Structures are given as structure tokens and as C-alpha cells.
């Protein structure tokens, strides 16, 4: 959290009514996790396995009469193999004020650190841009760092408008020298470069309009500020060794996301247009990208309570081979989601991502099941194969892994 956001949070906390809290809750979870890599690593210093302990606690306090609430959610992970994966983050720490303005609708003000998700698709989250990826957590990029912000949200009959002032930038986390799932050259996170002279104090702006009309849910979004995706430029660290230096540029991005829900079908689309981002060759290139697909669910298969969902999505990037994503500009995704609908909430998701123009592919499996009231067992596996030598995936070709986790929730 930046000093500015902290000050804003404290000021709004001080200004709030001193009345006793109506509700105070402390909840959270703690997990033990182990990850095994069956293949010898390619890069020096990397390990064959890791063990990790992590957890988060949520403190929530609400003053119903005044419409105020405070949420604080710190996260910490200890990791045995990579010191960079041992890290702390304030995932959330915000003050929320809800106010009805009779004619104008219901206003929500958030001040502090929060997480915001935009989008509908499963294989990639294109339009989602508010929060930085906490990449050391998992390679699927689903974990995010807390973002300091001021947010105003108004819900009306004709839709919802969200306005964001993003006060302070979060750098992406990257695995260190001993970590797996990294590029051949380690990303040096000590000396990030910025296009803006304000560096990580640059203030970004974002806006979103979203609405649901019958079967259609859609959102239009716009972002101006520091790109969450750094270009990785070759450079030297302080000792003169070759490293990659993250370079964060100023970008403009427009986004659209939509889902049409009919019967067992979910039809999904996300598209973005971005200016100001370096491509793979290190040139600034405007581009657009899209992901379109569906999810179809067979409910109650074989006369049971079990559901089977089939997912397919196509990912396109107009930069084609100049796309600096982990696959090239054209990829297809297929997945199967099995939900047991049993008292233990047993779930299994299988995914397959294929680069259309190269043999590069990625398989993954995620499964989880609750035991008793408080314990959850989770399993995850990743396989990368068929990687061309010039692909980003080539560095990960020996990083297949299987991971087991035990979580206690309270």
C-alpha cells in the first residue's frame, strides 16, 4: 500500500461514526502445500520439490446504520525453495461507505486496497486489469496483488458505473533464481524501469459500465495508466550478470466483455484494444486481442446429481508472432468441469491449451474436496509439451509439476 492510500484509509476511518460495530468477524484459512517436479531442472539452482505454508485472515467490521464497513485481509506465504515466493501482501484493506441518494441511486465508495475482477472467460482474463498478477503464487495468473484505489460505484436501472483512481502501482512478482517456472534469465525485480517519470507513483484511471439485459450480461471498460504487463528487457544486474529488467509502460486500453446465458449454454466473449505496449521485438505496437467461446453443461449425468461442463475458447492476438504472451497469437482451449454436487463439494477441472501454429501445448488438472467441516484437499497438475525453441514455453519444458494442498478454514 502506498503512503497516500494508507493516509486516505486512516482519514476515512477517523471520519467514520464512532458507534459500536454491529458485526465483527474474523475468518480465514491456513494451508500446507507441496509441489513435486518429476524432471531435472534446466536452470542452475532450481529444486525438484518445494514445501510451502500460507494463509490469510480476514477482519471484517460493519456499522449497519451508517452503511460503513472495514475489511482487512493480509496474506503471507513461506516457501522452502524460492525466497521470492516467501512474501507478504495486503490483499485487501479498505473502507466501504454505502449511501442511498434518493434520485441518483445507491453509491458505494471504497478507499484503500482492494481486488477487482472483470471478465467472463476461463482460459485467459483479457480485460481484467485493475490488479497486478502475483505470479510467484501460481503460473495460471489467477492470484492478484492488492491494489490501492479510490472507487466509486453507482448501480442504476440502466446499468452500473464504476470509476477508479488507482493510487500507486504494484510491480509483478517473478520467481527467483532457485524457483521453477521461470525464464532462463532471472527477472531482476530490484531495478524496474518505467516509461513515466512518476515511476510507481503514477496515478492510473479506469472506468467501467456494466449491465444485464435479459440473457445478456456485458461490460465496457477503459484504462489509462501503467501497464500491468511489463516488457522484459535484457540487462545486467549489479554484479554484471545477465538478467531481464521489467519495463512498465504507459498504455491506453479499451475492453469489452459479454456473456449470453441460455438454457445450459454460456456464450462468452472478451475483447481489448491496447496502445503503448512493446511487442516481442521491442517495438511499440497497437493491437487488439480477443477470446471467444462457450461452456455447455450436462446437468445430472447418468441420473445422478453430477454435472459435466464442456468448455471451449479461442484466443486471438492481432500481433500474431509478435505477441508477448506465453503462447503465440492464436491458441485454442478445451476443458471439462466435473461437479459432484455432493456434501463435500467435490470438483474436478481438466484443461488443454493448444498453440494453433506450433506444437506447444499445456495440460492442467485442478481438483478439490472438503473433508469434515473445515478441511479441504486440493490437487493440481501442469504439463507443458511440444514447445518450439523460440517459444516462451521452452523455458518451462521441464517444469511439469504435481501439487497437493491441505487447507484449514476458520
Amino acid at each position, binding site marked *: 500500500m502506498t503512503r497516500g492510500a494508507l493516509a486516505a484509509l486512516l482519514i476515512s476511518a477517523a471520519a467514520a461514526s464512532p458507534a459500536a460495530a454491529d*458485526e465483527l*468477524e474474523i*475468518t480465514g*484459512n491456513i494451508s500446507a502445500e507441496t509441489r513435486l517436479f518429476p524432471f531435472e531442472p534446466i536452470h542452475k539452482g532450481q529444486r525438484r520439490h518445494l514445501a510451502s505454508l500460507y494463509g490469510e485472515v480476514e477482519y*471484517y467490521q*460493519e456499522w449497519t446504520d451508517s452503511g460503513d*464497513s472495514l475489511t482487512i485481509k493480509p496474506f503471507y506465504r513461506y516457501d522452502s525453495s524460492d525466497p521470492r515466493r516467501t512474501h507478504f501482501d495486503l490483499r485487501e484493506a479498505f473502507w*466501504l461507505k*454505502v449511501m*442511498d441518494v434518493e434520485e441518483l*441511486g*445507491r453509491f*458505494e465508495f471504497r478507499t484503500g486496497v482492494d*481486488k*477487482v*475482477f472483470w471478465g*467472463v472467460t476461463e482460459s485467459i482474463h483479457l480485460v481484467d486489469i485493475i490488479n497486478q498478477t502475483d505470479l510467484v503464487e501460481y503460473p495460471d495468473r*489467477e492470484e492478484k496483488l492488492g491494489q490501492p484505489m479510490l472507487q466509486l*460505484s453507482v*448501480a442504476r436501472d440502466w446499468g*452500473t458505473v464504476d470509476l477508479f483512481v488507482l493510487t500507486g502501482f504494484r510491480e509483478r512478482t517473478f520467481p527467483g533464481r532457485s524457483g521453477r517456472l521461470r525464464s532462463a534469465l532471472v527477472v531482476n525485480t530490484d531495478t524496474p524501469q518505467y516509461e513515466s517519470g512518476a515511476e510507481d507513483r503514477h496515478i492510473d484511471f479506469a472506468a467501467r459500465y*456494466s449491465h*444485464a439485459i435479459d440473457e445478456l*450480461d456485458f461490460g465496457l471498460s477503459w484504462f489509462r495508466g501503467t501497464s500491468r504487463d511489463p516488457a522484459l528487457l535484457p540487462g545486467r544486474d549489479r554484479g554484471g550478470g545477465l538478467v531481464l529488467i521489467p519495463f512498465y509502460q504507459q498504455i491506453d486500453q479499451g475492453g469489452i466483455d459479454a*456473456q449470453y*446465458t441460455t*438454457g*445450459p*449454454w*454460456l456464450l462468452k466473449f472478451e475483447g481489448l484494444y491496447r496502445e503503448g505496449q512493446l511487442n516481442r521485438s521491442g517495438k511499440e505496437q497497437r493491437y487488439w486481442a480477443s477470446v471467444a467461446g462457450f461452456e455447455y*453443461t450436462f*446437468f*445430472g449425468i447418468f441420473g445422478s*446429481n453430477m*454435472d459435466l461442463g464442456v468448455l471451449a475458447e479461442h484466443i486471438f492476438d492481432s500481433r500474431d508472432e509478435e505477441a508477448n504472451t506465453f503462447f503465440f497469437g492464436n491458441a485454442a482451449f478445451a476443458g471439462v468441469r466435473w461437479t459432484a*454436487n*455432493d*456434501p*463435500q*463439494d467435490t470438483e474436478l477441472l481438466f484443461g488443454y491449451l493448444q498453440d494453433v501454429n506450433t506444437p506447444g501445448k499445456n495440460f492442467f488438472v485442478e481438483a478439490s474436496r*472438503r473433508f469434515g*467441516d*473445515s478441511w*479441504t484437499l486440493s490437487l493440481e497438475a501442469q504439463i507443458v509439451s511440444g514447445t518450439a525453441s523460440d517459444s516462451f514455453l521452452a523455458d518451462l519444458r521441464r517444469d511439469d509439476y504435481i501439487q497437493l494442498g491441505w*487447507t484449514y*478454514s*476458520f
Partner: protein
Amino acid sequence: MLSKDLRPLNRPAFGLFGLAVAALALTAPVGASTPEQIGLEIATEADRRDTGFGDYVVEDMKMVLRNRQGQESSRELQIKIFEVLDDGDKNLIVFDRPRDIKGTALLTFAHKVGDDDQWLYLPAVKRVKRISSSNKSGSFVGSEFAYEDLTSQEIEKYTYKYLRDESLDGLDCFVVERYPVYENSGYTRQVVWWDKAEYRVMKVDYYDRKGDLLKTLTYHGYQQYLDQYWRADKMVMVNHLTGKSTDLFWNNYVFRTGLSERDFNRNSLKRAK
């Protein structure tokens, strides 16, 4: 999600329908009334008596799932219901336990005709997902209740046929058969026991697609709120095929809490705790 199955009020039925039904109840059907017309009249009267509650909140709901061996697991949740007069009701459900799904919330706009609209909120990723609601016969969170058992019970969702009068645990009841007209129901028919005095649903037998008795739902501990609206403290669903059962406890009903439509949108879903 609350069944309007738990409808009825205590006022003597002075309405036209009420008189007609009361007369029918005491005597053989009069004139041109067919069993279908009588069945519809009973359902309509039950619905009329439960109209106008506005909104209510049940802070402490508990679901106890029991398998054939008697092993139990439970869920704790909260529900907010907002009455929509010209369509199905809106409701918001938030899970509190088990803790790994705490904060998971479900927003439903029920419709008299066609699929409901449903959004699911996943707190870990702060994501709102519009989900398919065509899965009417599917289990609600692993329980013996299907989504269609719990959604807003609108008159238009069934056709009816009055079967007989019968005493159930000492209460005089109408026994009415009803047939789902919406798509993807898991049932061919349901048999409903409404008590004659208050038009409260006392029991429902559910028959599966093969026509066999699948489940029985019973209502317990009815209490009256706002001098009009009857709500049960406990509902028990027994599955005759699997031997599993689910007890659903409704503790602390609060009516007319001042909720508005603004409390039932995607923003309020994200804020639900």
C-alpha cells in the same frame, strides 16, 4: 428461494375465491367445477393469502444433510427475499459455513414463465458469474432439495387437479395434484396437502420422471408473522430412493426490513457478507 409453498394467512376467506373454495371443501364440487378448476382455485387462494409480505430476512438458516448411514454435514446461510408482485420474487443467499465457502453468494430473479436469472459470487476471486438456471432438478448445495423445490412457487408454474379431502395429523387438508409446466423439471407430478383453515402447505410428495415416489417434504412449526403470513421453522425432505434426508431450519424471520430492489443486484451480491 423461499417457497411460497409456505404461504397462507389466517384471515377467514371472505374473498370470492375463498368462499367458493370453502364451499367446495365442505361439500361435493358444485356446478361445472372440474377437479382442475378446484385445484387451481385452492392454489390461487393460497397465493392470494401470502401476497403483500413485502420482504423478509432469515438470518440463521441451517441445512443438515444426512446420508443413509446417518452421517451428517451442515451448511449455515442467510437469505433475503423481496416480493415482486407482477413476476417471481428476488432473493439473495449468502453462505456462512462451511468456512471454505463463506461469502459465496447466490442472487436469483425468479420468473413466472421461463428460466430464472442467477448470478453466483465467488469471494476468493471476487468474481460474479452469471450461471445457467436450467438445472432445475439439480441438487441445491448437495442437499435433497432441488433448485425447483426452493425457488419462488408461482401459480403459473403448474397445472392443478384437486384429488380429495384428507386429514393429516389431525388437520383437515385439501389434497391437490400439480404438474410442472416449466421445462427441465425432475418431476412428472407433485401431490400437495394444504390445510383448509390457513392454506398452509403441510406436505408434498414428489414423483420422478418414471412416475415413482421420489421424495417427501414436510413442514413443521408454523408461526404467523404480521398477523398474516405463515412460515415454517423447519422443513424436512426425505429421499425414498437413496435414504438420504435434509433438514432445513429457518431461524429468526424478520419481515419488512426496508429492503428495496437496490439490495438485489450484482453490486449488493459482491458486498454480501
